[in-house]
């Protein structure tokens, strides 16, 4: 019994210590004195890996999700004779919820796991230690560009997801199911508010990008430097960041849209 309580305490303390190390990592890599000349090419390279290479999966899934929303919305709303409202349904559900959340989940799977594995392998092969040996701060050289790349590319990917999704919905609803396109777009434009809906969705994306990248980089940096440790860290990245995104989404929705 006492052993069990002890192991519980041990687990709690080590979890708390991990949170502390994660905060330390964030502080050290972001508060560090910026060096634009060495930092910029590194940032571009990470933006390419994290942002540009995620673009295809974002565009394809955004298009299909928009098309499914259009189809489902049409089949339900046509019963009530208000199929023109498909436009506002597709746009609101994409801009407010689906675009930030699905982009963040895909981003965690596509880019987050790669970041963890890369940094974990650098640790396992003692590249991080050798950077320190030759007097280069690995926080600034390895961690900071990856964090910034995640923060920057997540909102961009979310906005692209929304636009492609709305187009997918319009393709199904207007082109294939024959809703009058004037009322489709007019209903949408009347229902969607730029500040309340679009900007709040972007704020969500910024928060999710921050959390997902932070978890991914920290798990990589903090992993046990063996091949098994790297695989565990990669799994933890995907699981933790997905859970964090879904939990935070409820919290942010309650703050932004609900009168909780």
């Amino acid at each position, binding site marked *: 019994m006492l052993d069990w309580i002890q192991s519980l305490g041990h687990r709690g303390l080590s979890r708390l210590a991990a949170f502390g190390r994660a905060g330390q990592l964030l502080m050290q890599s972001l508060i560090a004195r910026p060096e634009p000349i060495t930092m910029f*090419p590194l940032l*571009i*390279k990470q*933006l*390419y890996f994290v*942002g*540009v290479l995620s*673009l295809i999966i974002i565009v394809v899934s955004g298009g299909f999700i928009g098309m499914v929303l259009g189809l489902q919305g049409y089949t339900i709303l046509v019963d*009530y*004779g*208000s199929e023109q409202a498909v436009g506002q349904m597709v*746009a609101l559900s994409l*801009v407010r919820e689906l675009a930030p959340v699905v982009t963040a989940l895909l981003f965690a799977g596509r880019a987050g796991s790669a970041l963890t594995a890369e940094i974990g392998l650098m640790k396992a092969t003692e590249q991080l230690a050798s950077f320190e040996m030759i007097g280069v701060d690995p926080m600034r050289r390895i961690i900071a560009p990856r964090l910034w790349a995640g923060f920057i*590319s997540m*909102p*961009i*990917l979310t*906005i*692209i997801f*929304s*636009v492609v999704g*709305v187009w997918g919905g319009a393709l199904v609803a207007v082109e294939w199911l024959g809703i009058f396109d004037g009322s489709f*777009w*007019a209903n*949408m*434009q*009347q229902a*969607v*508010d*730029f500040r309340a*809906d*679009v900007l709040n969705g*972007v704020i969500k994306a910024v928060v999710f990008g921050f959390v997902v990248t932070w978890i991914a980089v920290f798990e990589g940096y903090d992993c046990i430097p063996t091949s098994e440790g790297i695989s565990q860290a990669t799994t933890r990245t995907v699981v933790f960041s997905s859970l964090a995104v879904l939990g935070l989404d409820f919290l942010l929705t309650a703050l932004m849209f609900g009168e909780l």
Partner: protein
Amino acid sequence: MRMRTMEISVGFLMLAGFLALVVLALNVSGLNLSDQGGGYKVYARFDNIGGLTPRAKVAMSGVQIGEVTAIRLDPQMLMAEVEMKIRDDVDFLSTDSSAQILTSGLLGEQYIGITSGAEDEMLADGDRISDTQSALVLEDLIGKFLFNEVSD
């Protein structure tokens, strides 16, 4: 060379993100930068505005010509006063125009429908539409119906 292609593709990503935001703003949320200041204000008093809200459309023959900007209660008249902004290019509403609160579809949103009158003078900024017709409130309608049934 490798760096160059990377930089170009990241540039394209940034550009695509910016363009997508512009599309979201203009095409999806209907943000209209051009007519923020344009338009003239017209007022109308209604006995009952039903479910009318600010940003509801003001239409003539079903075509949108403006939007409701504010709704307040007139303490002297004890009526709802609706302030609406009509687009500048719609300058052919006569002073005896009438305003009605209508519903789009059976369950749709409420909006103001304007019917032009026969006067030669046109409505200008700050004018008031005196001929108004309130929203159709279902409870009132049922009440009248019941009352008529009883009195017959």
